[in-house]
């Protein structure tokens, strides 16, 4: 009896550990493993409830996976209809609840069902020859290496640099956000001039590291011309970027 229901105990432990790990913000590696288990376990349990022992293993895996994907959809909509906002606590409650109910239902189903005929649950053990295991291992290494190379290559893809300049009115108020963001790939020295009615009213000399942003709020109006010219030093002759209200 204990061996027959060992999977129920394991499912319960996985669900409990998964919820605990997510709740206490355990290290990512731990939460990933237990979290995947937390998602998968209800699918397994409900597949066990719905399918008989004669069902081929491949079918059980497919249906279990499908049910695991369905539970958050049905459960999420039910919780939303009940007025529960779908944040982490709600999801953990749903997955844990789905697991607990699944364990109870499956235990009842197994208790009611007739004992398995001898041999029906016998499993075939197929040994994988070492040579083939090594080849599969090499394939896995290739796959992992490919992903790693792809990520590194994508993260380090050279892109042309750019500098953002903006002057955007803040929500119908007499204030605008004036800002500069440097994405040139290195430190750049700028000069920013604010012009009112065509005359320089303020100047800022900015040295921005790559990725750095400078911004501040300035008085804004559409009654007279307001513009900002950004120069990239040493060129002070031609504005590098320009924004303004074009009055």
């Amino acid at each position, binding site marked *: 009896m204990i061996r027959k229901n060992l999977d129920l105990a394991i499912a319960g432990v996985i669900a409990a550990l998964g919820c605990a790990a997510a709740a206490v913000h355990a290290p990512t590696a731990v*939460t*990933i493993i237990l979290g995947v288990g937390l998602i998968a376990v209800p699918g397994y349990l409900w597949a066990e409830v719905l399918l008989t022992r004669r069902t081929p293993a491949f079918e059980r895996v497919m249906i279990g996976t499908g*049910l695991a994907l*369905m539970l958050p959809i049905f459960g999420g909509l039910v919780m939303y209809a009940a007025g529960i906002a779908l944040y982490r606590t709600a999801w953990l409650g749903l997955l844990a609840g789905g697991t607990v109910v699944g364990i109870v239902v499956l235990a009842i189903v197994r208790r009611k069902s007739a004992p398995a005929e001898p041999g029906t649950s016998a499993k075939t053990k197929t040994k994988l020859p070492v040579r083939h295991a090594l080849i599969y291992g090499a394939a896995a290494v290739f796959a992992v290496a490919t992903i790693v190379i792809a990520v590194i290559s994508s993260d380090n893809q050279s*892109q042309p640099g750019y500098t953002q300049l903006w002057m*955007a*009115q803040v929500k119908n108020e007499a204030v605008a956000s004036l800002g500069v963001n440097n994405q040139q790939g290195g430190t750049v020295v700028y000069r920013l001039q604010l012009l009112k009615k065509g005359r320089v009213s303020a100047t800022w000399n900015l040295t921005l590291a790559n990725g750095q942003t400078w911004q501040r709020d300035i008085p804004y109006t559409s009654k007279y011309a307001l513009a900002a010219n950004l120069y990239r030093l040493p060129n002070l002759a031609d504005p590098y970027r320009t924004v303004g209200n*074009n009055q």
Partner: protein
Amino acid sequence: MTSPDGETDQTAETAEAREASAREAQTTEIARVPETAQTPETPETQTPETRSGTTREAKQSRLPVSVLTLLAAMGVFCANAAFVAGRLGHADSDWANRAYWLGQALILIPIGIRLFSRRPLSKRDTIVLIVVLTVAEYLLKVCYSPSGFTFSDELLQWRSTTNLLNTGDPFTANFGIPVGPHYPGLQLATVALMDATGLSLFSAGLIVVGVAHLLFICVLYWVFTAVTRSHRVGAIAVLIYYTTPDLTSFNSMYVYETLALAFMGITVLAAWKVATLESRGDRTRWFIIAVLGILATVITHHVTSYVLTLTLMLVAVVCRFTGSRAAARRIGALAVIALAAVACWIAFVAPFTITYFTPTVQGMVNGLNSLLGSGSSSAPSTSLSPLNDQLLEGLGILATTVLLVYGCWQVWRAYKSDSWIVAMMIGSLAWFADLAIRVGFPDGQELAGRSATFVYIPVSVVTAVALTKYVNSKIVRNWRAAAMTVGAIAVITLQFDGLANGWPPYWERLPGPYQVGGVERSTGPEEIAMANWTLSKLGRGNKFATDIGNYPSLAGYGYQNPLQNVAYVFQSPTLSPALVLQYEQQGVQYVLADNRLSQALPVSGSYFPGETTVDTQKLPLIDLTKFNAPGIPRVFDDGNIVIYQVQGPAS
């Protein structure tokens, strides 16, 4: 129990036995099979030899499955090397493109030949090969953009998921795809995984759609095998299904259809069980699974749920006339449930769906009228594919059509009383409607590509029957090796056709630097940073006039409302009062002018979203800079992209 393949039962056979059964199939043609046949690989039908047959069969094969797996992994590595070369600035070089196709060849050809071969292959090994093929192609899709979503539809779904994360409300508006939040299945599954594991949205999204895609292909194989009573024909049908243009790209992307397809597959499998199982208890269990699958499909994706409903209706009707009435009643009940679920969902949750599809349906009706009235299509063409790809596409269409006609004939001759195959045959006739859509309707290429996902399911089965019949035919019996080679080459050629004419298109087959009027290659750090800026400084939901390259970034990352059909805003050198009036009436609040549009023609054929004509001349710079005019604030400038505020911001 004989299959079109000549297999008896589902047990693995020796080569000699298979030859004998093939000869038998020759003389008996394709035998009819009873409705109550068991699913393959059930313990009842397995012999001890089958269960332990894997190792024995592997010894008979010149290409063990493990070696094929390694070759596929090397193929992924090789194609990824081409992607890396593209990112290093060699996206247009011949050798990089050759490396990509070499990688694809290493994946497709060995597995294709092995699955097509008549050498015995156990069901387990067949499943392993199908899983390897699916995972390998999915890994390639991941390697294309391994750091974030870049495809436009993925960005739109990303926005819906981000909204759910931020608000806890799955129905939060999404301006880029207004109908999307009404079908929140993908978002719900992704966010549940994120909150359970702590994974990022990108990682969780990749896992959800990867699992869903693999599940769909596996279920498809299982259904094909169940319907044809042959795991070999089922495997060949999956191979043929791999010729679907969007299968390895759009149907494995982070879009709601990917998940819905898996649910649709489960529903069809469960429906088959409901129709064929003898035990009432078993039927009830599978009926519950089918209903769950129907509901999940309806919640997740509109078109998939409609196709599922039509499929169930078709099978029920065919069962009524060719098979058992009891089976017809059961499938009919599922069809009614599906129809009611779709109707209720549209009526109470997603009434916007009708508005969403109205222009598409109107376009199809107009195209049909034009086709019937004048005998020729008025559909504009935006296809700019190279001649090689077009020839391959033409060859693929011709080969599929010939095989389909031959397969339908075979089905009609030998399977008249088998409801599911007859239903597949009737469903496969949608292929010709697909062809008509391709040539006759505006956006026909895209519509045909999208519908191919569904149309190819029955087409694959019927053409697999045709191919199997062909290699078993008297004419080629004495030329079996040559016949097998021709058949394998045909299938693999069709697969390459699907890749060449699917997604990504030839002009961004390899990732690389920015391209004007592209999709993935028009979404880079600069565009994403601009989009993020609009959200932080302008707020959400502003109506933008922009080009096709910046459209997805603005809608996805920027949470803005970029408009369709705005080409007129840009295609004039002066800012006339009439133009101002027109864009004000359309509600345009901001104009995003990307100066790079003046430097090159759009690789996709069009500069602006909603255009159905090919732009043949570069956009003059003055058309983009004309907004530097009195009274139009210039709020953002990054050198390439300039944003003008032409009306007040959204409240």
